[in-house]
């Protein structure tokens, strides 16, 4: 039960991480020619921040997958 839960959480983490990477790559490809260091702050907020949150979320989920699974499966097995 617990191992199955870990697997599922890792799968979700992978989707977030990989999805974030793809989104970041897409944003950079679509906007690289408009990049202007004068607007770095705005560029970061519009094009980088969203995918970065997804990547970080996926990484955190992957790192804590065992603990989360243990917490969810507590008192079940």
């Amino acid at each position: 039960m617990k191992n199955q839960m870990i697997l599922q959480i890792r799968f979700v983490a992978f989707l977030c991480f990989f999805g974030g990477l793809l989104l970041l790559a897409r944003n950079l490809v679509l906007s690289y020619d408009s990049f202007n260091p004068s607007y770095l702050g705005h560029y970061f907020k519009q094009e980088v921040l969203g995918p970065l949150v997804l990547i970080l979320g996926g990484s955190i989920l992957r790192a804590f997958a065992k603990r989360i699974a243990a917490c969810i499966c507590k008192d079940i097995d």
Partner: protein
Amino acid sequence: MSQLRWLQIYGLITCLLPVGAGASDPRTVFERSLPRHSEAIQIRADQALEHTFVFQGLSDSPYIDVAEVYDWNHKGPKNDKEWAWFLNRHRYFEDLYIAYLKTGDAKYTGQIFYILEDWLAEHAGPPSGMSFSSAWRPLEAARRVLESWDILLVQLWSAPQFTDTLKASFIRSLDHHGDYLQNHHALYGNHLITEMIALLKVSLLRPQAVNSEAWRQYALDKLRSEYDKQVYPEGAHKELSSHYQRVVVRNYEKLLSLLQVSEQTELLEEWEPKVYRLWEYFASIRKPSGLAPLNNDSDREHVSHLLKQYGRSIEPSKTSIYHPNAGQVVFRSKPAKGRSPLWCFFDIGPRGSDHQHEDFMHLSLSFGNFPLLVDNGRYTYRPGAWRDYFQGPRSHNLLLIDGRDSDPMPKVADGPLPGTGFYQSEGIEAAWGEAHFSSPHGGRDATWQRVVIHLPKGHLLVLDHVLTFRPRQIEGFWHSAPDIDWSIASTSIYASRKSKKSRITYLSSEGNNLTLVQKKGEKEPTVSGWHSPRFNDRKPADSLYYSTTISQPTAFAWLFSNTDQTAKLQSLEIRSNTFRLAYSVNTVSFELIGKLPNNADKLTLKLVEKD
């Protein structure tokens, strides 16, 4: 002390009453003055004799000939519930009574009692809970008390047609109104204020009712707490609509009148400055013509006439003003030879607690009585294409990005919204706001900064800075009043009315070509180019729709020159948040250098005359 005074009035009034009659001293409770007889009133009264009524410009009859009764749920020619609500307010009793006073013909009062009897037969008692029905929406109950039923109780009590049976039903229903308004009033907004004024009035009209004192105390407590909740410190009602500002200020004037006739001097002294603050705000936003802007759900209201009507002498402001909580900036220039005074209303505030439009960063502009840029009003409350247009961004002077409006602002605010502010220095004033465009898939597509700069000699500059890093479709709108004509020349746009003319020039920092299209009174494929001076009334109005595609941060500058002068933009450069703009007025050139606000920074501006 206050309670004692009320008990004295209670005693005085009950002494004056015939036992069980429920009448009271007109000098004590009839706090309002009726309008003078006029042709319009006579026409409305004669129409009422034929069971025909005009509400919000729409005429219809709710009378069912066969049954000889009224259909009190009749929704008028447009099948609009607003019409049924107005029907149940009985405001036409006033017209009939005034026509009776003028002519002495008892057919007018006879019609009042005929309608009253029919209404009472249909509505024996109020519903057990809050209702939005035609007759028992709390606002309609309140309006009956405030605008029509007081005439019956105070002015027509001795009329021979007012039979004892009808009087008994009427008094029973009036007491029901008191209980209903206390227990099932609106939870917030301008309706609640109206309902509490009505509750106070019922307590005065019916001092002998068992719950009269409870009604009075409840109404006064609620009015006090609602003023604090619903009014910003600068005196703006939080719905941020000129029309509802008028409704609220008139209601609080009614409170003053009620306190005056009941000789509540302490309460009167407490309320007088509060009501004055509402007027001060209202006067501060009016145009040079005396009219109010049509912000949120508003009609064309004449503030100066209202001030005169209520004996409030507040001189028209000659300087610009910033209301930080309401988020409204009113720019003004003084009149001078050869040019009209500028008035510009720039909305950088919350949406409003109710009756909101999607109008963040909309601006209206007048040069004297020349309404160059306007808000298009409200027209209707019925959902559909018309409501979408008048309430939505396309009837305001705004920008859309990829066809979408900016993210909504909060309904109310406590101080200036983030990214907004007001700048004032010698000879130049400005205000700014910032809006974001969220992607439907999450994240942010773009940021839009708008800076409105009031230049010397009464010209106005609008700088729109759109920050995006992908190809985006930009659409913008400039709407004018119905009697203004636009014409597009090669590098300029002209707006004119008779001999008055304003020249508009524009530039883009990246050299984008704008596609300019004039639209007037179009219904297909989308509603475009309409103006509504009042509810249920719409007129075709010239509007300028412009569009372009950008793929990097781009600024657009628009210079609106005052009527008799020819100001023209010459160049625009922008890098990050620093811009440099050149313009000329006749033969004199100016350079404006500024730094747009970034995060908590303030705007900085420097204007120099070039040799």
